[in-house]
């Protein structure tokens, strides 16, 4: 028996697909998302004993139930999208920027610092410009440090950027303790609550209108930059093969540092939007793990910034919904992280079926589509 088994072809074989049509690729992804929603539904059912359909009603209610909730959902989607857009060029270059969390925080800290210092003396439009520039620069510095070491000595960027997160977190903790208000609360409190100096003005009557405009402009801009500009082309060549890039006369070092400067700067700007446009305060949870979630958003969208809008919306929608369910059933908010994890696992796994096909024993090559 055993000898027969050895000569037999394995039950399943894997072969790489030459290419897959866009509709079937999306069909596979949609199946993955639906499956993940089913599994999340089972999880929520097991915990709450609520009818799964009711669960998804509650999720929808949590995300879009009232106009205020809808705007919070949109605001948080824009936040996640902004970081994802910032990460896109770095990841397209295959530079593992795990440091978005820190870049966002350092941008946020600078913004909060300027908001506190100049809130009374400079008019809001001027202050907004100053804060935006400062946050861009801060994020830029935070991104360029690891990039420069990577370019010069090949220092591992994954771990370097990861450590930079914690340096930024400790700086934020320091500033929170420094700016504590009221004393003893261990929070900064809402900055300029009375004067609203340095806050985003309402646009079209919407408090978060400017967030949407800024982030969507960045999304379109980044799409064009990556797809149609010379620099965008250089990024994709470096990402595909550094040797090809060198052969073509592209300076890999220059592209690495320049791209990370852009990437860090946009993440820094996301910190500005989070502080001046949303929370009007600063804490170590201002980035709130979005720096890590955005990495997954950027990766799954394959650096297409428009696809990122959909993925960000899906994730934030489910997070808001999970928070709603949690408060209805007296559970805690972390349910949303579990659901996010489940969905991402499924989407990550589905990429396999887009790139490979599984062939059953006995079938010939080409028989399976």
């Amino acid at each position: 028996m055993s000898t027969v088994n050895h000569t037999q072809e394995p039950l399943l074989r894997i072969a790489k697909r030459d290419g897959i049509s866009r509709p079937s690729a999306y069909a596979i992804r949609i199946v993955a998302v639906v499956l993940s929603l089913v599994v999340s539904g089972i999880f929520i059912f097991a915990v709450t004993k609520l009818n799964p359909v009711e669960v998804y009603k509650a999720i929808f209610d949590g995300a879009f139930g009232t106009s205020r909730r809808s705007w919070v959902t949109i605001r948080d989607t824009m936040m996640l999208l902004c970081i994802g857009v910032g990460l896109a060029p770095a990841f397209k270059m295959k530079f593992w920027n795990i440091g978005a969390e820190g870049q966002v925080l350092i941008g946020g800290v600078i913004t909060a610092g300027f908001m506190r210092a100049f809130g009374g003396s400079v008019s809001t439009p001027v202050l907004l410009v100053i804060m935006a520039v400062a946050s861009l620069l801060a994020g830029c510095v935070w991104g360029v440090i690891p990039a420069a070491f990577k370019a010069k000595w090949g220092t591992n960027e994954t771990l370097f950027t990861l450590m930079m997160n914690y340096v930024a977190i400790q700086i934020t903790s320091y500033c929170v303790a420094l700016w504590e208000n009221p004393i003893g609360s261990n929070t900064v409190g809402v900055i300029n609550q009375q004067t609203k100096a340095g806050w985003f003005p309402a646009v079209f009557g919407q408090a978060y209108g400017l967030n949407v405009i800024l982030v969507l402009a960045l999304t379109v801009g980044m799409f064009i930059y990556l797809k149609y500009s010379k620099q965008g082309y250089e990024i994709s060549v470096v990402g595909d093969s550094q040797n090809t890039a060198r052969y073509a006369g592209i300076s890999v070092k220059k592209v690495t540092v320049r791209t990370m400067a852009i990437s860090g700067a946009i993440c820094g700007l996301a910190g500005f939007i989070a502080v001046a446009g949303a929370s009007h305060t600063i804490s170590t949870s201002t980035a709130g793990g979005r720096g890590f979630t955005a990495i997954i958003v950027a990766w799954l969208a394959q650096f297409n910034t428009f696809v990122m809008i959909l993925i960000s919306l899906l994730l934030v929608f489910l997070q808001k919904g999970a928070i709603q369910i949690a408060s209805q059933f007296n559970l805690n908010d972390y349910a949303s992280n579990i659901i996010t994890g489940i969905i991402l696992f499924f989407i990550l796994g589905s990429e396999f079926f887009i790139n490979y096909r599984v062939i059953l024993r006995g079938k010939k090559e080409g028989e399976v589509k």
Partner: protein
Amino acid sequence: MTSAQVIQLLQSAVCFGTVIMFGAIGEILTEKSGNLNLGVPGIMYLGGIAGLAASFFYEFNNPAPNKVVCLLLSFIAAFLASALGGLLYSFLTITLRANQNVTGLTLTIFGGGVANFFGGSLNTMAGGVGQISVAATSSIYRANINNVTDLGVVGKLFLSYGFMVYLAIVVAIVMAWFLNRTRTGLNLRAVGENPATADAAGINVTRYKYLATCIGAGISGMGGLYYTMDYIKGTWANDGTIESLGWLAVALVIFATWRSVNAIWGSYLFGLLFWVYLIIPGLGRKDIELFKMLPYLVTIMVLIAISLRKKRENQPPASLGLPYFREER
């Protein structure tokens, strides 16, 4: 600065170090197979909550819990839950060939979600002040010889810890022996350095990667177990400490240059750097935050130093983070 303060500092450093030492040793095993698992914080979360939940339900339903059962239940639950986390990571990255970094980060989000969700729920279930406590189990983890003997300073410095502190050192030494002195360890390193060559030599790359990642995850999860049972004395807090310790464990792997014996003193050094503010007089609360940055800054220095010196024996496994597809050679 009194001698009592110094002893307290050293004790804190050892306890702190043990949490990240487990995390780092597990990750060293995983990385030696070429898998860069950024899910360590999530895995430590899983280990911590599984051990806590297992002993909680046992103590909750038994008014007079048997200590041996407490110990075994929490230990096995923690190891299995963390190894399952490793299995999930392995299945996605090795079989389904998903990207390692992205999968690891997702595992961190997922593990943190699971642990904080159930940890918070356990706190609610425990009733009372809303704080779970597994006194019986925790007391076994914290039992130490220093209470029965009295050896003064020596006893305080070397004998005042729970058994997992010593277990971590033993695991680190066994790991070094396994990786450097056994055939299986040699094969595993070959897989991490050059999987194609290992494959050609008849080593089952997939099996090695799976086993190393799952067992490595199980060991990492022990860090979470030690944290919940000993470090915070059998309770739970949704404060994200395990996550930051998990990332420090990843940092420690680099600091130890992928040698588990270095992780022993490295972890205590990290602990010392983290707690050094205890003995510096006159520090405000905000200054303490700056001091807590030290372990991360030191890791960055080490990272730069090893990339500058380019000594061959200090480099990460050559195929670290890279996927291996036999048909894409």
